[in-house]
């Protein structure tokens, strides 16, 4: 009890009060006075009386200090003292303080920002029940390691497997949704009935799909995404049970998904419905348009599941040799599918940010070293006056902590800013495919990470000067003569640190160089068409109105004609899939007269209008292009690309040859009339596949993309495109109007490469700056320490050129070691980048050479300044100063 009270009163005593101090002073004064009175009475002289009283007391200051220490906890009190002293020290050298805090803020801020992304994407578990037990279930084709699964295969897999407690399918889709401003196509998803139960998601409002609600006779129902409910239905609770019209089908709203629900493969989906109404594709086993998820039964591993599903696929292959040949199974963890693509980039960025942080710490540490060097005398004096070595070391540690605390606060602020900035750079479409990024922010993980790096930095900063505080030699430090040897010691340590910085800078520069070059090559990949001055727009004809091919063809012609009249438009065409959107939407073909054993010859399948090749300016290599006359009344014709001709007609002339589907069904037979260049249908970093271009007139689709060639900048046309389409029929849905160039630049591939290149480039630039500043610091300090030596040399006849040489050689050696070590490390580190590089080797000589030159030049400039200063030393003054 007493002890507790005493402890509490001591704690309150931490706050130093003037009053306590004064009161004790007067108490001591009265004590002395009483003692002096006694002494005087004993016959002493006044001077002796006072002296004797003070001696008996044991010293006024000493007593006061002992009293002070009892008043509160000495450790806390002296720590406060240390902090006050540290702040005063830092205030006294604002240049050092600002530089150190700025560097720390940079390093810590960058690390925090990147870590926040890593946390949102990779660390936080996906918001499903037990997400690690969820599997991505897909088929495995010859050309695609992971391909869509066909509806009938899916039902067989679902029925036959014993490894999943549940397995459900999903696919994309879209509806035309009537709003006050007209018809709007909205992205949607169609799933089998137990999809949400498998994920472990329960609607926040209303109910989930009933079991059996995905059967053909079930009434159409939909579950809303949370954002849709908020945006389109005002977040009203009474929407449950309401009937809305989706593409003309009356559909009942039965539920609303939770706010934190996300499913990146169908990130943008606003309406979730069941697959109760099968599309024509879903009725055929050979048509693949679904993906599936499965929840592994307890104790079942992914390998077991893979083996079992492969066996089932094999069984189906025997049962349906035509459609299922070579169609295996692909089972993988669902989280891997969701974040697998972004992981390597994030890890590279995290490594980059971390290297930057190391450079920043090293730089600040060497600044601290320089300071500790110039404060040797101060510490020697304090030591001589009775400060214990541990107290002196504590002073250093406190200063380190104060610096780190300030740096961390600044770093947190800059990190938050950087997160905002980075997330602002992510396009809306990208965000829809990476919805987990919406979980970005300062959460406990990020704060914990911040605390960890702050502690690490604090440890580094407090330890470096401590290492350089040889308490035993303190007395020598009082002598000026000691300075030269101490300087040498420090120069060696500082030089090592600078080599480390330069090495890291080289690694980051090489990384940035490789990523930048790879990004450049990606953007300059051969497209085989002219992307500038092209405007594009997706068009969706309502299937209820345009339920016959002829109606679709007529509408397409009307749209083309209408858009052609817009000012500035020189040519208009349509295609089922825009170029550079990725391999896919394929057809299995069999060439008439070629040996065939049921293999799946996969080619990209595109339906285009007659002016398509002219509009995108693709080159015709042989034969003729499609014409307006190639319509439903005429024999079916196709134009193929060069890759098709090379692969399936080696040494043959394809013109006039025919091909069809695997059975060579008569209505599938087409005649090849022309060969065009390899138009890049694939995304920028994929291989070119064989492709066929069928006549839209003969193979109409109610969903297509409009491609518009303009005489000048296509941007002005963009705004009038939708209106022009709606003049044909206001019920037609249009969306995603963009120029072709925007589409290419914003494509996921370009985006990921660009962000990696820019961010690593930014880190590298900062690293270069910090590294060079570090080098400058070391050389400049070395010059200041060697002033006398240089003075002596010059007095003995050394030329200025020799002095330049002396200093530049010192810098040159450090730089050379740094660059060499850096390149060796970079070669090792860049294997980490391999997955992110396009068309470039990890040991690209020109990049390495360029980095070496840039760093060498920067280092030369940085060391020239101190070298110049050294050469202009006046020997007389230098010698006198010492």
């Amino acid at each position, binding site marked *: 009890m*007493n002890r507790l009270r*005493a402890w509490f009163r001591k704690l309150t005593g931490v706050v130093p009060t003037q009053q306590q101090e004064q009161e004790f002073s007067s108490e001591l004064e*009265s004590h002395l006075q009483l003692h002096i009175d006694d002494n005087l009475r004993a016959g002493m002289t006044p001077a002796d009386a006072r002296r004797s009283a003070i001696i008996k*007391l044991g010293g006024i200051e000493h*007593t006061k200090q002992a009293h002070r220490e009892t008043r509160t906890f000495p450790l806390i009190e002296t720590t406060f003292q240390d902090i006050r002293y540290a702040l005063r020290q830092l205030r006294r050298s604002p240049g050092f303080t600002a530089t150190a805090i700025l560097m720390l803020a940079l390093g810590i801020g960058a690390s925090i920002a990147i870590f926040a992304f890593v946390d949102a994407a990779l660390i936080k578990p996906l918001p499903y029940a037990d997400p690690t037990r969820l599997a991505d279930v897909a088929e495995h084709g010859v050309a695609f390691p992971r391909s869509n699964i066909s509806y009938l295969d899916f039902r067989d897999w679902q029925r036959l497997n014993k490894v999943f407690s549940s397995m459900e399918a999903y696919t994309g889709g879209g509806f035309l949704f009537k709003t006050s401003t007209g018809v709007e196509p909205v992205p949607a998803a169609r799933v089998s009935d137990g999809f949400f139960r498998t994920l472990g998601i329960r609607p926040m409002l209303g109910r989930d799909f009933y079991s059996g609600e995905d059967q053909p006779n079930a009434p159409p129902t939909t579950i809303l995404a949370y954002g849709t409910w908020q945006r389109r239905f005002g977040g009203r609770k009474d929407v449950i049970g309401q009937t809305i019209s989706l593409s003309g089908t009356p559909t009942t709203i039965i539920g609303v998904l939770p706010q934190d629900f996300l499913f990146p493969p169908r990130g943008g989906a606003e309406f979730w419905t069941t697959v109760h109404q099968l599309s024509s594709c879903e009725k055929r086993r050979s048509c693949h348009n679904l993906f599936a998820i499965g929840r592994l039964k307890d104790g079942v591993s992914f390998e077991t599941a893979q083996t079992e599903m492969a066996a089932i696929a094999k069984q189906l292959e025997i049962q349906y040799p035509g459609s299922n040949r070579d169609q295996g199974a692909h089972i993988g963890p669902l989280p891997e599918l969701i974040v697998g693509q972004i992981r390597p980039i994030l890890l590279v960025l995290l490594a980059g940010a971390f290297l930057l942080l190391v450079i920043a710490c090293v730089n600040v540490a060497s600044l601290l070293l320089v300071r500790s060097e110039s404060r040797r005398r101060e510490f020697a004096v304090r030591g001589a006056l009775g400060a214990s070595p541990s107290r002196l070391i504590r002073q250093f540690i406190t200063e380190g902590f104060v610096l780190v605390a300030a740096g961390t606060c600044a770093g947190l602020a800059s990190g938050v800013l950087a997160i905002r900035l980075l997330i602002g750079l992510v396009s809306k479409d990208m965000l829809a495919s990476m919805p987990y990024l919406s979980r970005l922010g300062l959460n406990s993980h990020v704060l914990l990470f911040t605390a960890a790096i702050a502690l690490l930095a604090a440890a580094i900063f407090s330890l470096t000067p401590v290492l350089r505080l040889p308490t035993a030699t303190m007395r020598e430090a009082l002598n000026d003569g000691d300075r030269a040897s101490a300087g040498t010691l420090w120069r060696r340590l500082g030089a090592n640190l600078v080599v480390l910085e330069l090495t890291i800078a080289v690694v980051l520069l090489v990384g940035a160089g490789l990523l930048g070059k790879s990004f450049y090559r990606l953007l300059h990949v051969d497209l085989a068409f002219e992307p500038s001055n092209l405007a594009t727009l997706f068009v969706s004809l309502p299937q209820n109105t345009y339920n016959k091919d002829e109606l679709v063809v007529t509408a397409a012609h009307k749209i083309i004609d209408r858009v052609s009249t817009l000012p500035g438009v020189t040519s208009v065409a349509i295609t089922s899939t825009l170029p550079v959107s990725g391999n896919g939407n394929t057809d299995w073909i069999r060439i008439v007269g070629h040996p065939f054993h049921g293999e799946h010859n996969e080619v990209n399948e595109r339906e285009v209008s007659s002016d398509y090749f002219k509009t995108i300016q693709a080159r015709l290599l042989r034969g003729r292009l499609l014409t307006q006359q190639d319509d439903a009344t005429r024999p079916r014709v196709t134009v193929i690309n060069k890759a098709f001709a090379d692969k399936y007609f080696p040494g043959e002339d394809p013109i006039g040859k025919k091909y069809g589907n695997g059975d060579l069904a008569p209505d599938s037979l087409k005649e090849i009339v022309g060969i065009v260049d390899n138009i890049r249908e694939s995304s920028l970093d994929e291989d070119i596949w064989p492709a066929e271009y069928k006549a839209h007139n003969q193979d109409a689709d109610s969903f297509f993309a409009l491609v518009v060639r303009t005489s000048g900048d296509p941007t002005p046309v963009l705004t009038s495109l939708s209106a022009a389409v709606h003049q044909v029929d206001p019920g037609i849905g249009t969306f995603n109007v963009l120029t072709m160039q925007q589409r290419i630049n914003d494509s996921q591939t370009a985006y990921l490469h660009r962000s990696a290149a820019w961010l690593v480039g930014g880190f590298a630039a900062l690293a270069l700056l910090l590294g060079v500043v570090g080098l400058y610091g070391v050389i400049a300090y070395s010059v200041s320490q060697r002033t006398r030596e240089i003075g002596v040399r010059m007095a003995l006849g050394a030329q200025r050129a020799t002095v330049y040489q002396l200093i530049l050689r010192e810098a040159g050696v450090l730089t050379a070691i740094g660059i060499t070590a850096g390149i060796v490390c970079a070669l090792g580190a860049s294997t980490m980048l391999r997955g992110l590089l396009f068309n470039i080797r990890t040991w690209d000589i020109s990049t390495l050479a360029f980095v070496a030159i840039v760093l060498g030049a920067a280092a030369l400039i940085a060391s020239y300044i101190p070298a110049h200063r050294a050469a202009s030393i006046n020997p007389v003054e230098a010698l006198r100063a010492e």
Partner: protein
Amino acid sequence: MGDKTDVWQGTLSLMVLKTLEAMGPLHGYGIARRIEQTSGDLLALNYGTLYPALLKLEQEGAIASEWGQSENNRRAKFYSLTRVGRRLLDKEARSWEQTTAILARFLAPSEDAS
């Protein structure tokens, strides 16, 4: 002078408490003189060491302090025993007596043997 003993750790506060019990409210200088006199001038007491001990006792609530006038009209801070202090004195005194008694037993036989 040379035979003076240093004050053992912890015994000083007991002496202070006992002094205050015997003398009533007293200022720091008075307590110091009194302890010295009571010890028969055998203790070498640096008066300064008394003040942290007084502060500690005050923090524990064993004594209270108040400014007042000394016998020769000097302003001084007077310390007095509180109820807590009385209890503490009893406890400490008893435990001290016990300790000395035990130690005395240890030391006694060796004296016999010599």
